[in-house]
């Protein structure tokens, strides 16, 4: 994999995107966590800070993407909408994660450097 990428960067610019796509396809280690079904999260309201805070970064407060949370399209959209709504309504902080929820069990596939 690493050798392939090195070769591509040597070639002209137009060819690199195409070859990078081929590399991603052959790589089987995708982050889609299928065993944890999205039907766990039945109805998402904007009151629940605890649930919604699990999907934001503790340092910057940005919402994790689909490749990190492993949710399906519909649920990811619902959670994003609920997080934005809670932030606007004044239930959840925007730029950081509420310190009370920092010790939560990790739901997402993100790994921070210790």
């Amino acid at each position, binding site marked *: 994999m690493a050798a392939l990428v090195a070769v591509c960067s040597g070639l002209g610019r137009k060819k690199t995107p195409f070859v990078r796509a081929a590399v991603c396809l052959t790589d089987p280690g995708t982050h889609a966590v299928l065993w944890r079904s999205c039907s766990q999260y039945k*109805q998402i309201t904007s009151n629940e800070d605890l649930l919604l805070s699990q999907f934001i970064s503790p340092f910057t407060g940005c919402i994790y993407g689909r490749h990190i949370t492993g949710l399906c399209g*519909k649920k990811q959209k619902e959670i994003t909408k609920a997080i934005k709504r809670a932030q606007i*309504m*004044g239930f959840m902080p925007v730029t950081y994660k509420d310190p009370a929820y920092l010790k939560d069990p990790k739901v997402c596939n993100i790994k921070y450097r210790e």
Partner: protein
Amino acid sequence: MPPTHPETAAALKRTIEALLDRGAIVRDLENLGERALPYRISAHSRQHSRGGYFLVDFYAPPTAVESIMEYLSRDIDVIRPNVVKHPLTQEVKECGGIVPVPLEEKLYSMKKRK
């Protein structure tokens, strides 16, 4: 019993009376507690860092929402008014999870080429 100020009680009474005037049927009033706001909110030329959260359950025609929001935005005691559809009225659809899509077909067309 947490100390309730007479001003909050008067403000709540005013809002519920305004709701009833616009033809709403109030079902429930819930106190979600008084706590520090997640971020400093400036409203009516003043900045607030603490607030009381109240949830009012009510039935109302959709045409009344605009007049309710206009009234609440004029009230000095209300920092951030929000009207949201009741989450329990939304039907819960079963989420089937992530469906694996054959990505090869998307990359190039599988038609027979001479």
